[in-house]
């Protein structure tokens, strides 16, 4: 019996080949199944929106908060809105830079960039471990990866892992597969339990994790960030926009009254905002503070995002200030 168990080198090699063939098939299947992920859909939509003149860019706050048709209705029913929402949820300024560059290649005559942010998105440096690049971050693996690599820091070891990972769809798109398993796990864990509060982005409770734990922590962050420069990807977005003759307006996105009262109604945030305004003014970039535009907490679906009703209100108000490309004087907040 023992003899029968012996595996010769030839058999081991053959078994390895079969195993690799199965993994290659898995790689192919994952590549096909992830052809329409969020980032790929936005890139595809960008290619079909060449007449757009106004670009909205940012993370999920802009993605959920900006409705192009409310901001600037189309001139006629056959036309599309002059504005295009290029923002992507769960993105850092690096992914936003990649989307913006894709937009610049597609849009024929863009004239205005509305860049939405909250908290410290403009100044915090972007750093990743390879394991962080799941979900919408996976765009970093396939959309100008070598260019993008200049705008976020990684250790040498992580960088080697990044280079290896981006060559295999099964690894690069692992987050899409894991997300399906996670959804199944959540579904099973919900059996017999009280229903979780959810909105268009997922579990409402999850988004509180994105806020500072308390005011002290937030104020300390403000104090440090008040000495920082704009981070590299944000500076590059501004540079590339201005190189194309596009006017840039940086917008503090509307946030729920609780977030505004807890974090923004503080001297530390005011000081940080003055610092940001000075940095932006030095680059001829306009600044618009819309953080308190929606004082009704019921128009937010969670700790950060507007509901569709709130998004419509924000977009209309923003459109009233910023949709007339011949007169954008109102599309900024004067320095405090």
């Amino acid at each position, binding site marked *: 019996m023992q003899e029968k168990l012996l595996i010769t080198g030839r058999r081991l090699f053959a078994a390895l080949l079969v195993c690799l063939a199965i993994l290659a098939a898995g790689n192919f299947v994952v590549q096909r199944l992830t052809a329409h992920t969020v980032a790929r859909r936005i890139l595809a939509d960008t290619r079909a929106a060449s007449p757009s003149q106004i670009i909205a860019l940012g993370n999920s706050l802009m993605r959920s908060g900006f409705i192009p048709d409310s901001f600037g209705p189309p001139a006629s029913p056959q036309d599309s809105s002059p504005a295009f929402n290029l923002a992507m949820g769960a993105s850092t300024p690096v992914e936003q830079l990649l989307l913006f560059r894709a937009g610049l290649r597609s849009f024929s005559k863009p004239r205005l960039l509305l860049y939405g942010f909250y908290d410290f998105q403009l100044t915090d440096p972007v750093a990743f471990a390879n394991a962080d690049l799941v979900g919408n971050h996976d765009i970093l693996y396939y959309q100008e990866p070598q260019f993008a690599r200049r705008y976020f820091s990684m250790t040498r070891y992580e960088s080697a892992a990044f280079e290896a990972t981006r060559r295999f769809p099964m690894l690069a798109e692992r987050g899409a597969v894991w997300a399906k398993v996670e959804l199944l796990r959540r579904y099973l864990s919900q059996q017999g339990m009280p229903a979780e509060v959810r909105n*268009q982005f997922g579990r409402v409770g999850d988004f509180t*994790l994105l806020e500072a734990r308390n005011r002290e922590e937030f104020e300390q962050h403000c104090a440090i960030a008040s000495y920082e420069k704009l981070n590299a990807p944000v500076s590059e977005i501004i540079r590339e926009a201005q190189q194309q003759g596009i006017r840039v307006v940086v917008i503090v996105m509307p946030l729920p009254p609780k977030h505004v009262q807890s974090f923004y109604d503080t001297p530390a945030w005011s000081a940080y905002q003055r610092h940001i305004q000075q940095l932006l003014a030095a680059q001829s970039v306009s600044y618009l503070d819309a953080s308190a535009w929606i004082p009704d907490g019921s128009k937010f679906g969670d700790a950060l995002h507007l509901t569709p009703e709130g998004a419509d209100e924000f977009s209309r108000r923003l459109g009233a200030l910023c949709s007339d490309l011949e007169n954008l004087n109102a599309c900024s907040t004067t320095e405090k």
Partner: protein
Amino acid sequence: MKKMKLLTWLIQFLEFLGGERDIPPAGFPALGNPLFWGIWWGALSLVIYVFCGQSSKFIYIDF
């Protein structure tokens, strides 16, 4: 009785695959067949791949 034997055989089969026992039960299929082992390790790799993300922190997975 037949069912019990089958259950015992199945337990021994899984224990052998899992490395718990050195000797497979009688009638173990294709012991020397590299195709079987290739498929077995390939399938295991895929299962590990699919489920190894569970400890990751997911928040934005619905859009």
